[in-house]
């Protein structure tokens, strides 16, 4: 049918916050703005919704005010439901402490999972951006009668650059052979997309086992420690993906969307990425505007030149200013006669007239939320 009550979605909204500390100072991973009008959590939520999953729990740690604000009732993702729907699971539970690892988090919110009628649980982080339909993954998981099915993609891993990356190795039957976290090599390999399908009964077992042994880490205790005891399989996803594990990477990941092929792989017509509605007007271009190779969100008012940049909603660029190789988050105001290049401006930054700001491709200049320059 169109709605699949057999599956519960769980989003880990605060996984790996520390790797992009600039952006998570006042928010959490899931609420980081991305791609002109989205937040990172929009991608897992849209993947769930388009796969017929209508019951979703969002597991947060700290700084989740902006996430609460973004998600609201879940209505913009069609998740304001009576049966299922979107549930924010606050970090402070019975025991009072903050979650330590993935297994600990699951143990703390187990009542929510238990209460669901679903037979399968799909878990997803927010730091991998991709568009995926989970139905074929689920089908394979069921056919394999697997305990866990990991979603991975082939990709180039660079030991020097990439952080918090899990590399998976499978045998000829697609069964998990090895799990390497941040291994010391570079080259093409199977990169875990931080998503997996787990049979709920099995999940219950490992979560309660881990709780009784005071274990927190899913990767260490389950994947690495006991991979041979369980039937852990892999599913290869072929679409475009990008993993955000540093501010440099965030900068590159946004600008990847200027490649029409990548953009179209992420923003598929049959699986539109859903997000909070802003009710901004169309983009307004002035009499002397000049735009090349850029992604511009609604509500922008552009009087100057924009090249090779991502402009989020309601950004203003004044006359005779040049914006080049930049990522300007919502509400950035660039005055007149400025020249800014390789800059990441967080929300509501104001850059006054005549300013020159220059970062580099490898070290983009980051300006914090609300900064006035």
């Amino acid at each position, binding site marked *: 049918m169109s709605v699949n009550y057999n599956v519960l979605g769980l989003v880990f909204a605060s996984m790996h916050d520390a790797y992009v500390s600039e952006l998570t100072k006042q928010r959490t991973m899931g609420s980081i703005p991305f791609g002109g009008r989205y937040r990172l959590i929009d991608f897992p939520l849209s993947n769930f919704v388009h796969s017929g999953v209508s019951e979703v729990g969002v597991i947060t740690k700290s700084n989740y005010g902006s996430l609460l604000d973004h998600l609201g009732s879940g209505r913009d993702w069609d998740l304001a439901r009576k049966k299922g729907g979107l549930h924010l699971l606050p970090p402070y539970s019975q025991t009072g402490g903050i979650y330590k690892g993935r297994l600990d988090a699951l143990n703390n919110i187990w009542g929510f999972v238990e209460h669901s009628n679903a037979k399968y649980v799909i878990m997803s982080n927010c730091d991998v951006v991709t568009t995926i339909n989970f139905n074929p993954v689920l089908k394979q998981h069921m056919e394999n009668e697997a305990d866990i099915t990991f979603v991975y993609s082939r990709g180039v891993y660079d030991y020097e650059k990439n952080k918090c990356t899990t590399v998976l190795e499978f045998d000829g039957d697609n069964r998990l052979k090895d799990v390497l976290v941040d291994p010391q090599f570079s080259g093409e390999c199977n990169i875990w997309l931080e998503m997996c399908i787990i049979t709920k009964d099995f999940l219950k077992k490992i979560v309660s086992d881990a709780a009784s042994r005071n274990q927190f880490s899913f990767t260490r205790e389950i994947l690495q420690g006991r991979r041979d005891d369980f039937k852990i399989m892999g599913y290869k996803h072929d679409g475009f993906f990008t993993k955000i594990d540093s501010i440099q990477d965030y900068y590159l990941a946004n600008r990847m969307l200027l490649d029409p092929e990548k953009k179209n792989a992420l923003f598929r017509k049959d699986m*539109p990425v859903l997000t909070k509605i802003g009710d901004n*007007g*169309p983009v307004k271009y002035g009499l002397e505007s*000049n735009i090349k190779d850029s992604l511009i969100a*609604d509500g922008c008012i552009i009087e100057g030149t924009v090249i090779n940049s991502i402009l989020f909603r309601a950004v203003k660029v004044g006359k005779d200013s040049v914006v080049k190789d930049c990522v300007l988050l919502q509400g950035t105001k660039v005055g007149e006669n400025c020249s800014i290049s390789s800059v990441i401006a967080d929300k509501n930054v104001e850059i006054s007239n005549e300013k020159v700001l220059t970062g580099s491709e490898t070290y983009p200049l980051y300006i914090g939320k609300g900064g006035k320059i």
Partner: protein
Amino acid sequence: MYTKKRVVAMLLAGGQGSRLYALTKNVAKPAVPYGGKYRLIDFPLSNCTNSGIDTVGVLTQYQPLVLNEYIGNGQPWDLDKMNGGVHVLPPYETQAGASWYEGTANAIYQNMRFIERYDPEYVVVLGGDHIYKMDYSKMVDFHVANDADCTISVIDVPKAEASRFGIMICDDQNQVTDFVEKPKEPKSTLASMGIYVFTWEKLRKYLIENENEANAKRDKGEPWSKDFGKDIITSMLRDKQRLFAYEFEGYWKDVGTLDSLWEANMDLLSPSVPLDLYDPSWKIYSRNSNMPPQYVGDNANIENSMISEGSTIDGTVDFSILFSGVTIEAGATVNYSIIMPGTVIKSGAVVEYAIVGSDSVIESHARVGSSPEMIENRDDWGIAVVGHNVTVSADKVVEPKQIIGENI
């Protein structure tokens, strides 16, 4: 179940909009796109929300599917209310039989039960085809302050144009003493904007009277009508009811014709036109298309235009309004034109002084419209129009003033 509402709004969305026919083949007029991301009905609906009116009936019988789906549960306009909200009210069948709406007054008459559920003190009657931002709550306050039975909003029009409108003649207290539809020699320049506030008790009385009188005339074979402006207002004036004119100052545009629709869009590009779509305190809400930000390519050349999300622009766009999901290929040119959602302008095509409907395709090197400077005889010049879902094949030409509803 229903709690009382002080004010209920009734929106007359009925019209087929025959003067816009190339654009209203499968949609009611209030669903016609405007301003890059809006439809005409967004304006009265957003005005209601911003004025604190949360109960709106939309009366329609022409092609309601698009309008119905567009309005949906009213959520985009914050009109999805448990008690109140926006409701599309189509004609229906009763034990006495089924009947279509026979005029605007009859449409409201047939839906009196809807109004009475909310036991309102005032009913605001609106149209669906004007572009303006107006705080109806101030007009209601004016109505109450004057102890009026009916208040009609008016706008001061140039004397030369007055004969195109319904003109109100008022005394110095703003009380309406006479009303003339399209007078040849206008005695005033106060044109009715088609926005009324009624004390519900009074409106109710006149709706019932008009219905009965018109039916009696029809039974006798006499000419009859059940029209809102024509019959209800005239009867109230005849009976010396307290009618007042509420003068509106601001941008107001009737978009009843293809030319005025084009003009109203072009107005948005003029810095001197006082219609701000970016004012956060009076947002114009619209159903969102959930598309990614627009992508502007290497070959693009955009000036003085408005462009909406999901579009891909790699050609030249000047003095134009582009809706969501429009594609302008490299080498295509769009000047002084309106391109509705999902339409593709292919490489080498030129679109000038034109309206192109949604999901249409202008193939390579086709030409739609032309600038007035290129036309010898100015009478031959006018806006070129291509309807929705129409393909203009490669190298074909749509002349100025031409209206194309089928593939060529």
